[in-house]
């Protein structure tokens, strides 16, 4: 667009446009963003920066905190894996097959986004409690679901499903079928075609969906606190531990753990961005 401009033009903050309102709208955007998001978030890091290192290290590595990391990251990981398997079935069925109730199924997938987390939390607890619909049968065979790590995993699974399905759907739609045809015409069986041709091209979307579901589960609070039972060292997730520390006026401890969690979710998102860049680069190379 700007190729006709002289190459030795001075460095400009923005390219010329006849449209008005740039200063007003960008100024307002930056001001509002700073007031609501950037300044409050920087408070978290500045708070931690004033903490002595050994105190910070102690706050983020005491046994109760370590136990909460293990539970939070472990159950989030299992939940994300379960969602990858079943989310694939859901996304594949929604894109490739036509069946009665398909539209309803498609809409229902977004339920965890639309249903407030506290509501899903108490509903899941009611289902999996000892006298609940499913909980009573699990109790009969000696499985404790609510108020155990299994209950936490169920909540983490609930919250992550839409991320996997919504990331996979467009990727499955984009498979043009030509590579599948080519593989089939060269004598591959449907199973071989699926594993050697279809799966590799869906892998980036699967990984992205997995990472998004994992990131969401790691930070989840509302749908987990009711079903987890919140026993320190056993079923206490990290988000709840932050709140507990705050209620005991241990601001430094709460802040230190929060920084660890925030950095963890930034790292996951960075990995997703890297993944998408890698996929984009591979795509460009292919062309």
């Amino acid at each position: 667009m700007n190729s006709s401009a002289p190459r030795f033009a001075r460095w400009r903050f923005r390219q010329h446009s006849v449209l008005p309102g740039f200063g007003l709208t960008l100024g307002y955007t930056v001001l509002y963003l700073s007031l609501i998001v950037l300044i409050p978030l920087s408070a978290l890091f500045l708070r931690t920066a004033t903490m002595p290192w050994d105190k910070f290290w102690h706050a983020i590595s005491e046994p109760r905190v370590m136990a909460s990391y293990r539970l939070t990251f472990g159950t989030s990981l299992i939940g994300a894996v379960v969602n990858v398997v079943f989310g694939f079935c859901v996304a594949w069925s929604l894109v490739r097959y036509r069946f009665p109730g398909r539209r309803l199924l498609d809409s229902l997938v977004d339920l965890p986004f639309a249903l407030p987390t506290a509501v899903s939390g108490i509903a899941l607890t009611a289902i999996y409690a000892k006298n609940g619909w499913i909980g009573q049968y699990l109790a009969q065979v000696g499985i404790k679901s609510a108020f155990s790590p299994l209950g936490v995993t169920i909540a983490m699974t609930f919250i992550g499903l839409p991320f996997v399905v919504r990331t996979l759907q467009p990727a499955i739609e984009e498979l043009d079928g030509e590579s599948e045809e080519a593989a089939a015409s060269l004598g591959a069986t449907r199973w071989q075609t699926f594993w050697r041709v279809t799966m590799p091209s869906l892998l980036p979307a699967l990984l992205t969906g997995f990472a998004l579901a994992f990131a969401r589960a790691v930070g989840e609070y509302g749908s987990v606190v009711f079903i987890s039972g919140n026993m320190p060292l056993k079923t206490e997730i990290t988000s709840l531990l932050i709140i507990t520390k705050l209620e005991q006026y241990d601001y430094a401890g709460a802040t230190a753990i929060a920084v660890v969690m925030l950095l963890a979710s930034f790292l996951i998102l960075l990995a997703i961005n890297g993944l998408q860049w890698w996929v984009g680069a591979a795509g460009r190379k292919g062309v």
Partner: protein
Amino acid sequence: MAGVTTQRAKLIGRNQASIQDPVWVRWLLIAISIGFVGLFLALPLLTVFLEAFQDGWRAYLRSFNDPAAWKAIKLTLLAAGISLPLNLVFGLAASWAIAKFEFRGKSLLITLIDLPFAVSPVISGLIYVLIFGLQGWLGPWLAGYDIKIIFAVPGIVLATVFVTFPFVAREIIPLMQEQGDDEEQAALSLGASGWQTFWRVTLPNVKWAVLYGVILCNARAMGEFGAVSVVSGHIRGKTTTVPLHVEILYNEYEVVAAFSMASILAVLGVLTLAAKTFLEGKVQQAYRETLEPSAAEA
């Protein structure tokens, strides 16, 4: 060209069996999908209503005979009523700046706008405690003027604004970017003022995306739990929103009352899903019309 198409059609016809999944695979996958979504998503939704009505609809209605419940509903409406217009105006301003102009640091700005999505709910509340709480930066100074933000209504509003911050902006920005600024330039050259151009040209073009963003923003604003839980202090009838009131009732073993309150939020969730499904079609149509203007008549 036509030859290629027929050749491809032949190829599809020949290899249909090896490209399409066998019938048993098809039905197995559909059954697994319906079973999983039914068990993990539909069952919890159904449970909310079954638990709320377990003692009949009289008991259900009695749950609303509680002043604290109505206070909670009012506070939820207030928090959503403030954060919606704020984030709507921000979304429109941000998308105008980002979509209609080329400037340095644009992609950084887009990333920063999405930042609140990467921050977990509890941390979203915590950052405001660190600033406005009694041990926070501004806490002692505010206390001198007898202004309370944490464990009071302003804190709840702030936390709600934070968690719903990107919703409207991220729906409008990509659509406006796709649409470019040709129509605006035409309007301006025909003598329209900047405001006229915005109200008569830009806004009508993105109206469905705006509505879509507002619906999502509203659902989150009314349902937010973790962030407001940190800043609320749980003072019954004063600083409790509907989700927080549900929590209090549930912890007091008032199961019917808790699920009755929850049922309002569940209805809101179902309505949101319906509106979302409808608006998604409208937004996609707006994208298609941008790509090929002739589709507008089709």
